[in-house]
């Protein structure tokens, strides 16, 4: 690339007194140009689809023909759609069934990894491997494990005389199967994040605990867990967002047909319903409306998580202490009153 004569002696030109004051925007242009590709790509592939989906959600559109303006009709239908509410229920149940055991298990695994003395790297990799495996492949494997008539799990249950469970046709079986896949896939990932958090905790604290004679259990609950709270918050929020978007597992388990949620739609999650509405039934307006409902839900749950696990520590502690005192006084008063009545 040729360099123009004007730009080349720029360094020399600073000494020349006859130059006009530099144009602020021209000066900043190279920097803006340098960062522009991201913003241009983001505008096209990030911002535009988001805004467009709002636009679509006010229309009835089958993907090819003319869009028809229907105003808030899609949202109105959404709120009275029993299937939609069912998918929210399904998603929340699957989310709880997967996230709670997953985070507890991850914490235990992280603690074990932290204290492991031999083969540390091997274990870390071993726990992380499920996360990098293709979710479709995982689901196909789990599909044959959970399969009703000829699944490995049922074969095992029958061999020890427990009878078989209709994993892929009964409402709870489906949810447990999906939750298991999610847990298996993400437990290692969260464990590694916890491990990073654990290693950031100063050894002094543990030594002090040891000197004070704390048992391992006490150390875990009184030191490790509170010190990890920001990390736990992070994993809880990401798991919430991930959990509300569960899709692939149920889709691969139940195939590419119109019944992507399995029998009785018991495995139909919000995102599967979005996919089914938009891309199987070709109701793009309704699909977009579901997407925005999901957005609202995710915001809501992130706030709840933040409240439950995170927030300002000191304020929480003092408020909790205040509440405890209040409760104690109330209890005493109640007791006194009861005694007076007698």
């Amino acid at each position: 690339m040729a360099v123009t004569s004007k730009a080349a002696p720029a360094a020399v030109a600073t000494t020349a007194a006859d130059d006009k004051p530099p144009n602020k925007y021209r000066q900043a242009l190279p920097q803006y140009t340098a960062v522009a590709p991201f913003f241009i790509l983001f505008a096209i592939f990030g911002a535009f689809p988001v805004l467009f989906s709002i636009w679509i959600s006010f229309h009835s559109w089958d993907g090819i023909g003319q869009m028809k303006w229907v105003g808030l009709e899609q949202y109105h239908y959404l709120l009275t759609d029993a299937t939609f509410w069912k998918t929210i229920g399904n998603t929340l149940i699957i989310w709880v069934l997967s996230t709670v055991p997953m985070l507890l298990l991850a914490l235990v695994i992280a603690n074990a990894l932290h204290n492991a003395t031999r083969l540390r790297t091997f274990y870390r990799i071993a726990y992380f491997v499920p996360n990098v495996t293709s979710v479709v492949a995982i689901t196909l494997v789990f599909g044959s494990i959970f399969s009703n008539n000829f699944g490995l799990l049922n074969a095992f249950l029958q061999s020890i005389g427990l009878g078989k469970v209709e994993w892929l046709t009964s409402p709870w079986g489906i949810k447990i199967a999906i939750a298991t896949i999610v847990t298996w896939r993400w437990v290692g990932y969260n464990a590694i994040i916890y491990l990073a958090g654990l290693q950031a905790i100063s050894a002094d604290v543990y030594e002090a605990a040891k000197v004070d004679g704390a048992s391992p259990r006490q150390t875990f609950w009184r030191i490790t867990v509170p010190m990890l709270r920001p990390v736990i918050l992070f994993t809880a929020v990401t798991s919430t967002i991930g959990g509300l978007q569960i899709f692939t597992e149920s889709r691969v388990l139940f195939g590419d047909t119109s019944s992507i949620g399995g029998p009785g739609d018991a495995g139909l999650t919000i995102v599967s319903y979005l996919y089914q509405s938009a891309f199987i039934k070709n109701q793009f307006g309704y699909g977009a409306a579901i997407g925005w409902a999901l957005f609202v839900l995710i915001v809501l749950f992130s706030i709840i998580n933040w409240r439950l696990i995170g927030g300002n520590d000191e304020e929480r502690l003092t408020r909790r202490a205040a509440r405890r005192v209040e409760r104690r006084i109330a209890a005493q008063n109640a007791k006194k009153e009861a005694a007076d009545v007698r």
Partner: protein
Amino acid sequence: MTLSRRKFLAAGTAAAAAGLTGCGSVGSLGGKNELSMWTWVGSVNDGLIGQAEKAIPGYDGMKLAMTRIGSNYKTKVLTALAGKSLVPDIVAINDDVATYFPNADQFHDLYELGAKDLEQDFLPWKWKWGVTPQGKMMAYPMDTGPTALFYRTDIFTKAGIDIDPAAVAGLAPDWDTFIALGKKLKQAVPGSSITDNITSIYGYRMAQLPKKYMTKEGQYIGDQDHVRQSFDLAVRVVKEGLSANAQNSTDKNAVVTNGKLVAYNGAVWWAQLGPKNAAPKTKGLWRVTAAPGGAGNKGGSFLAITKYCKNPQAAFALISWLESAKNQAQAFLDPVLFPSTPASYTDSRLSAPDPFFGGQKIVDVFADSAKKYPGAYFSPYDSIIDTPIGAELVNIEASGKNPDQAWADAQHQVQRELSRVGAI
């Protein structure tokens, strides 16, 4: 021209913008002397496509560029059509062809390209399915899916039933006698089933009827007796314990492999997808005969020429050549597509005895079914109606839902969905 920095940036930005918006590529996909075609895997004969990829018959300058779309075929076609650029010249369409009718303006009228002259070569009901209610021919027939009764001779022998196809057809001419036959089989060989699941019975019963869910005038008839009777029949088969309750594909294959499924009302393509793939060891044990309740059809596909096509005449020459009686006979050999051209049925390639079916000439059974099929009107809303009904049937079989409640729930859901899309 000296390349200044400004010019360089301007050119780069313009190129990037052009690349991102895809301008300069409006219209159809592929080179000037190429016709692009999209189908899903296993919908055309590879040998014929190979010939067309060298030269399109009658159009020496043109050749075919074929793409086999793996999954989500329909979504990809709709996306291409919605994008209005890089649209394939020819697309394959499944038996949900009527769902494209509201957008028939996206396709060429094949009558204008000379389809009228070829009409008498095809099964009349099949031809009609590609024509919109306004009389525009939107889709050209490919294969069909005539139905028949598949059954296992070894199990029938154990139950003391004559295994001759004509005798079996005589024993079970309608669904009542077929259920009685199923009970007899179950007594002789415990665990025997006559269907993989409840939706199969319902679907194949509906596929025999001369009407479906809507009238041509757009009236909803999915709540009438013919649908309710099919619904009740499916429930009855389950209540009699004659369904294998196999809801997913793993289980569906399993009941074929382990011999639980001893008789099955299926379409012609099931021979390949079912026993031949899932249970190759049962070779020679299967036979086919006329289905209880009459001739039926399930499945089958079409080809359509999009309005973006660069050379509609050549495209029509290609599809009419590909779907000629002679070439459809070849497509039956691989990948087992049943011709929509009756002239193919006497072709020696079809009428060869099939060793998997004990040397039976199975084409006769299916040809008979294809010719006798009454043909029902397919509306653009059939899949919208079919989904809730099927889902409720599964609820009955998988979780023991009360059939009357299931029927009421299905109808309620159908009404809601239809009023949303403005069909009623």
